[in-house]
């Protein structure tokens, strides 16, 4: 059996007396396309922060690429596209090339400059997300969907093993959401990048994801997306604490 990219054992996390996560056990297998769903305040963002080492669990252990998270230093193996990426300062005068180059800042290291080889890598990453013709444009002038792809390129430039996306399609129009998922699908299938995607859209997950995880303080479901969508309304209401409708997408 291959080693999972992330494995969390018995994770509990509380923020000022308020329990956010309780006894969460989760493995993200290599090559998975995992969707993470759950109600707001259910701990999705906290789970991501724990994986990224931005917060420490009160209890339990987390291993990233088979290393305890506290000792893990190879952070550029983990790409992260935040929800806020879309809400960045649009007036910031940076070209697509400059934004993607920032992905390499930590990897290249202090007191070193970007070499020609780095620049080629940057252009490759921009090409992969289909933004080559915009490489010299200010990123603030692009549409929401284009910007989100630029932020993915910023992670890709590090050749990550795991790409974490926190509701990346908020504010992207429906047409481009589909293209966005096609891109993720391609990265997952062709480049073997493991994906963890926080979303509210369980419908579209059935189309792309290999695993679906539902989190509300504890793990309520972990399995194939098809099984999740076949759950009865009653089961879902139990998870979410209120009635839920699933919107299916028929493409």
């Amino acid at each position, binding site marked *: 059996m291959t080693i999972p990219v992330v494995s969390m054992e018995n994770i509990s996390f509380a923020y000022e007396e308020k329990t956010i996560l309780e006894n969460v056990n989760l493995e993200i297998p290599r090559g998975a396309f995992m969707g993470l769903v759950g109600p707001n305040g259910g701990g999705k963002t906290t789970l991501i922060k724990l994986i*990224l080492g*931005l917060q420490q669990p009160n209890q339990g252990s987390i291993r990233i690429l088979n290393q305890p998270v506290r000792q893990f*230093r190879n*952070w*550029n193996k*983990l790409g*992260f596209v*935040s929800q*806020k*990426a879309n809400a*960045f*300062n649009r*007036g*910031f*005068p*940076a*070209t697509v*090339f*400059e*934004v993607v*180059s*920032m*992905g*390499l*800042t*930590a*990897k*290249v290291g*202090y*007191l070193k*400059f*970007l070499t020609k080889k780095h620049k080629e890598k940057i252009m490759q990453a921009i090409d992969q997300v289909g933004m080559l013709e*915009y490489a*010299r*444009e*200010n990123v603030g*002038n*692009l*549409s929401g*969907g*284009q910007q989100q792809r630029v932020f993915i390129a*910023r992670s890709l430039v*590090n050749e990550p093993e795991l790409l974490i996306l926190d509701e990346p399609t908020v504010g992207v129009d429906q047409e*481009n959401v589909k*293209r966005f998922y096609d891109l993720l699908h391609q990265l997952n299938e062709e480049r073997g990048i493991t994906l963890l995607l926080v979303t509210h859209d369980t419908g579209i997950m059935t189309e792309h994801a290999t695993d679906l995880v539902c989190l509300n303080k504890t793990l309520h479901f972990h399995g194939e997306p098809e099984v999740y969508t076949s759950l009865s309304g009653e089961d879902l209401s139990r998870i979410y604490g209120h009635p839920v409708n699933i919107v299916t997408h028929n493409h």
Partner: protein
Amino acid sequence: MLADFLQYDFLRHTFLTGILIGIIAPLLGTFIVVRRLSLIADALSHVTLAGIAFGMMMEKKFAVTFLTPFYSGMAFSVLGSILIEKLRGVYKAYQELAIPIIMSGGVGLSVIFISVADGFNTDLFNYLFGSVSAVSQNDFLLILVISIIIVGVVALFYKELFTLSFDEEHATVSGLHAKRIHLLFIVLTALVIAASIRIVGVLLVSALMTLPVAASMRLAKGFKQMMFLSVIFGELAVMIGLISGYYLSIPPGGTIVMVSIVILLLSIGIKKLRPNLSKVRESE
């Protein structure tokens, strides 16, 4: 027109110092503006004023001469910058609170030191609005050293400063030491402000850091280009401002800032005339 500047020592020092601050002020200003910290420059300049007043008081009341107002201003500025960083850590959700706290503290201290040092005088007027004749050879040499340090540090840490300014969360996730780099940056800012005050004055130093950037932001494609344009605009403003200030007998702070504003208005005008300059928002 330049003849006087080349002929007299004090004017030559002023002119050379002007060339230097025309580079370093907009250079750091680019980062300050994109990080939405424009007011920090103002807060620090007022702390610098407190330092200057402190130096004057020591000179007049206690006959301490080794601590000139220029040096004590610089020391206060650097201390103030460190305090701002600390305060921003204390009020995480209201980081801008650090600015009025430090600014009013600076003004409060200035008032006390100034009155102990027997009140207003020409020297102080020069510090507030800048002067064409205030730069001594020693001041110039110190500003030269500071400028070399600043240009060097910005070149060496360019990618870190840029990455942090754009997206602090992402930068931290990828493993950058955000806190240390912020501290380094704000100390550099304090040095630039202290260095520039001789020429532009306490009240107008922040303008030299922000107005050229505001102008180039309208025109530039990308960050490096913006930085480059800012420095060009900054140099233009300092040169034209210094020379016209000298011939019109006006403190250069006023003329430098007015030239900056003219450049800013021109850049806005150009953008209006050519609205498609950097619009690309095409369909995907």
